[in-house]
């Protein structure tokens, strides 16, 4: 049994791989979207909310996966970027009545721009300086969220954030908003899928595998890593713009430094460098504790311990484990 798309069959001829070419990942995404469209029927408000939260977190983790898994950079500010998007959306929609769609686009643009500004000086030096710059940025954003009461509401946060409507259809209902989230997640995932498969995306992977070799082959490493980081950050901005209307209330706590660490662990748990990894990671990080009704910080300890064990046994995370299991099964079949 061979997958329809093996690495040898991908020619480097066209610069624009049109979606006429379909592979297993895209089919999985499509099937997942269809299932999730219908899944919450009869699940109740809370169950639906958890599923939506899973998808929104997945978007942020997807972006971080691009930064960490494909470009090999440590960003410790993914939650802060998410906060930037969430606060921008919350403030503009509640105080100025700006349309959510505009806020969504602005959130992406703002986080992309901030990503460029932060990444430029750090990546000029050495990749791991980005970790420290984003660490500092994360703390700074958190301070602003907490201290600037006139803008962010301080520790009391911002409440009564409206949900957007879709061509006149109000999305107040949990199920309707969930479907809206499903569609946006699907679109963002496909865009990422397309980006990674494009020659442009393959330069990322080359970078991660061997930066110096990539540079000697003519890849402008600095530009590529910078763009990977900025796009990854923009995904966090998009996630934030969805998070605010989903929860309808935001305060600084979900955007703290610990949350950024937590998002990184989700990338690793799911499998960094696998397109579907973020969904698995966010499932383990967000949905599982809700379903098991685990207390917050105890689950964090267990999750972190599991990730450490995974890192020792299989640094490719759950996706890597599944791949291994699959290879073992098919390998047995071929051996006979």
């Amino acid at each position: 049994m061979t997958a329809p798309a093996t690495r040898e069959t991908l020619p480097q001829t066209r610069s624009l791989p049109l979606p006429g070419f379909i592979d297993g990942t895209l089919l999985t995404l499509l099937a997942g979207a269809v299932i999730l469209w219908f899944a919450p029927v009869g699940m109740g408000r809370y169950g639906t909310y958890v599923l939506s939260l899973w998808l929104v977190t997945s978007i942020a983790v997807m972006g971080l996966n691009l930064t960490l898994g494909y470009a090999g950079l440590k960003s410790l500010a993914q939650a802060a970027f998410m906060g930037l998007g969430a606060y921008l959306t919350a403030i503009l929609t509640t105080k100025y009545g700006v349309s959510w769609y505009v806020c969504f686009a602005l959130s992406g643009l703002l986080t992309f721009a901030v990503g460029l500004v932060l990444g430029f000086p750090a990546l000029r030096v050495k990749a791991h300086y980005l970790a420290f710059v984003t660490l500092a940025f994360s703390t700074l954003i958190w301070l602003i969220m907490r201290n600037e009461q006139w803008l962010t509401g301080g520790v009391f946060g911002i409440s009564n954030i409206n949900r957007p409507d879709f061509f006149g259809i109000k999305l107040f209902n949990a199920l309707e908003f969930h479907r809206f989230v499903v569609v946006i997640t699907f679109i963002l995932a496909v865009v990422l899928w397309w980006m990674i498969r494009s020659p442009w995306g393959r330069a990322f992977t080359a970078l991660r595998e061997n930066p110096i070799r990539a540079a000697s082959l003519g890849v402008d490493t600095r530009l590529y890593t910078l763009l990977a980081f900025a796009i990854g950050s923009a995904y966090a901005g998009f996630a934030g713009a969805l998070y605010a209307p989903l929860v309808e209330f935001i305060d600084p706590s979900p955007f703290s430094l610990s949350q950024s660490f937590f998002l990184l662990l989700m990338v690793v748990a799911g499998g960094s460098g696998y397109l579907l990894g973020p969904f698995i990671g966010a499932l383990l990080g967000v949905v599982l504790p809700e379903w098991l009704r685990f207390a917050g910080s105890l689950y964090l300890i267990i999750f972190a311990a599991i990730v450490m064990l995974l890192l020792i046994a299989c640094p490719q995370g759950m996706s890597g484990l599944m791949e291994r299991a699959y290879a073992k099964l098919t390998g047995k079949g071929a051996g006979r």
Partner: protein
Amino acid sequence: MVEFIAYLIAGIATGAIYALAAIGFTLVWQTSQTINFAQGEFVMLPAILVLLAIKVLGAPVWLGALIGIAAFILIFGVGFKLFVVDPMIRHGVLPLAIATMALSIIMKEGAKDGFSAEAQTFPSFVPSQTIQVFGASISLQHLAIIAVAFAVIFLLQWFVGGTRLGRQMQATAQNPTVARILGIPVERMVLLTFAINAALAVVASVLISPIYLAKFSNGEVIGLFAFIAAIVGGFNQVRGALVGGLIVGIVDSMAAAYVSSSYRLAVPLVLLVVIILLKPEGLMGRKEERRV
């Protein structure tokens, strides 16, 4: 001026704490390419363990301190090296860095769940009095911190530069392959570095906890400032970490006094960005060469 002196002393005292954490951080970085994102939690936890030993075992303060400190060095010095760094380093530096983040979450949440979510008082070995020097009132605790921290740092400098064992450690950090050829037990030297890192964290923890109280979230700020100190001073030098720590401590203290108490954290962050832009190898650092 009188005020300024008081703030300066306070800044040097907290700076010495950051320097201790930053020195441990650079030592570990040099010998094993480990970026320890749990460094702040390393300074937070010993105080918690000491209090836990006193509370659970009902031991007197000195015995509790001894047990807590020994447990910390064993678990987070030797154990950290053997059970986290060793199995992880073969996968590369990135997974290891992420593992230390996971460790930081475990340490922080563990201290919160296993001990207390509230700040706890920590016994001080000097009275909390102030003395008058040229009209400025200076806390005895700050002076004690400065004295002990500097004594420890000079002891470490002497150990690294002046003893056989210390020079073997230095050789291991600079070039492990050649060190091994020269017959230096490289593995044991790396282990020693981790133990020293834990010991420095213990000193920092015992010094700072009487002032800032022992709380699970203390590590966040200390860790952040230790990283900044290491970068400002220069990643590859103990001396750099010392200078960086003092600068960050003084800047932090002055910012709290003269800028804004709610944005005191922001000023050292600006310092970090300026250093990265203007002198990325740090004030005392040398440029590192890239190797293929």
